[in-house]
């Protein structure tokens, strides 16, 4: 510790080095990590890992395949909600997740530049800033089966400073304990959007931790809500600031900026879920690489809002991200509320 010109204490780089070195104490046990990895590699996989990629997956993706029948993202959201309360633990979800790869027949004629598509995307986001941003992340899809599904609702999609922000996330994974995807946790956070540049604020966090999944608790940084209970606490949370990235998934605005900077290239036009779509492929030259490449992105050619991104195309498994922007109707706003299953008592998160 030294002092600056005004006599204020200043830390040194050695202070920083020494402080970082003390964090080694948090290192997990190598044995426990390896046991988990080996277990996850086996045929009966625990649900903890979201992006499992088993060896030797057959290249079924190479075969021409029609896209699976899809509900819209909004309809998917509604379906999940109806299934959450009142069923036996652990809750399972029948999320119509997108697990198929579109058969691509891109039209190469008259393609717009990536820069113009990126700018159009950024403009389009401005038009939906008051909507609810819905995201669905489906992980580890192989042979039409997903290992995880993470749904997020965030409103408003692009909050202004001083505006109340609500975000909800429902996390489901495949586990050997139940058939299908089991809901692990359902959580929401509400806070007042801070001024630009302020990264964290105090918010109210509601967490439902589902029982029967094998998890020991839900939460972060040692603040764990026990399985089979729900909690509501005030704590510091990351703020969404003024960007459209609220739902905790990939940020459409970040994607748009990446497209505008030609980190993506336009590869064709096609139709996706009945929508005219511009298809883009990530070049790998940008700062954010969604490993493993290739990653494809489809943007609605009329609204310039993102529809879907598929990461790991051509690998044995891939991940899918989907977006929808929902008008803030009473029905859609109800999607922001965490559902507390009957019989779940309130608990105090452990420290």
């Amino acid at each position, binding site marked *: 510790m*030294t002092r*600056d010109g005004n006599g*204020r*204490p*200043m*830390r*040194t*780089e050695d*202070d*920083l*080095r*020494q*402080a*970082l*070195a*003390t*964090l*080694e*104490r*948090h*290192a*997990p046990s*190598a044995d426990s*990590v*390896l046991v*988990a*990895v080996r277990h*996850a*590699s086996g045929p009966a996989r625990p649900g*903890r890992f*979201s*992006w*499992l*990629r*088993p060896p030797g997956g057959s290249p079924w993706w190479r075969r021409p395949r029609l896209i699976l029948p899809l509900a819209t993202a909004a309809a998917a959201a509604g379906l999940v909600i109806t299934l959450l309360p009142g069923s036996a633990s652990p809750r399972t979800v029948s999320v119509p997740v997108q697990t198929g790869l579109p058969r691509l027949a891109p039209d190469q004629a008259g393609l717009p530049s990536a820069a113009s598509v990126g700018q159009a995307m950024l403009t389009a986001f401005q038009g939906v800033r008051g909507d609810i941003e819905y995201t669905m*992340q489906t992980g580890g899809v192989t042979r039409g089966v997903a290992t995880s599904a*993470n749904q*997020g609702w965030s409103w408003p999609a692009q909050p202004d400073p001083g505006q109340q922000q609500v*975000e909800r*996330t429902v996390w489901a994974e495949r586990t050997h304990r139940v058939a299908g995807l089991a809901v692990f946790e359902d959580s929401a956070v509400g806070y007042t959007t801070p001024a630009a540049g302020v*990264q*964290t604020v105090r*918010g109210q*966090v509601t967490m439902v931790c589902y029982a029967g999944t094998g998890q020991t608790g839900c939460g*972060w*940084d*040692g*603040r764990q809500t026990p399985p089979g209970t729900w909690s509501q606490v005030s704590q510091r*949370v*990351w*703020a*969404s600031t003024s960007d459209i990235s609220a739902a*905790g*998934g*990939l*940020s459409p605005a970040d994607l748009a900026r990446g497209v505008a900077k030609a980190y993506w290239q336009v590869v064709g036009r096609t139709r996706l879920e009945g929508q005219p779509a511009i298809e883009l492929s990530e070049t790998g030259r*940008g*700062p*954010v690489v969604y*490993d493993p490449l290739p990653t494809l992105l489809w943007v609605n050619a009329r609204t310039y809002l993102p529809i879907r991104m598929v990461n790991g195309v051509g690998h044995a498994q891939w991940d899918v991200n989907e977006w929808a922007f929902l008008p803030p109707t009473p029905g859609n706003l109800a999607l922001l509320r965490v559902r507390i299953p009957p019989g779940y008592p309130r608990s105090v998160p452990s420290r």
Partner: protein
Amino acid sequence: MVEAALTFEEFAATRLPAVLRFAAVLTGDRGLAEDVVQEVLLRASRRWESIAGLDRPEAYVRKMIVNEYLSWRRRSWRLVPSGAGTEVDGRLTPDPAAGHAEREALLAELARLPARQRAVLVLRYYEGFSDSEIAETLGCAAGTVRGYASRALALLRVEMTGPPSSAQHVIKEKS
């Protein structure tokens, strides 16, 4: 003479402890470090043959860990760690009382940094990477790395005692 490629088992036996320490420093959270390393090892084991053929497999695995950590921060929702280092394990790190509170305060401020700024500091001051090595790891320009570092150091009130390159002398190979 061509050196035999490291098998995944050999990597796990000899290098994993250092990788785990790195993950712990990067994330500041035992549970998150465990999750991140598990996911990375799972993926790495699938294609170990190609990773083992690289000049520095361990460096590649660390790069995967950084990317995975940044990815977790992207997709995880917005709970803020209440302060890395708050779970002090005195058995492992006896610390003079005088410096303890200040160190814990510094760790808490580190935990609140944006993920990329934190990653830059960890790579520079814990791993001893050069700015160009950090840039390669994060997939950005060296100038961007210096920008992240300078903003983070200002937030933490850490005084630079020399040019950025002076930070590169530390612990090149921790194992």
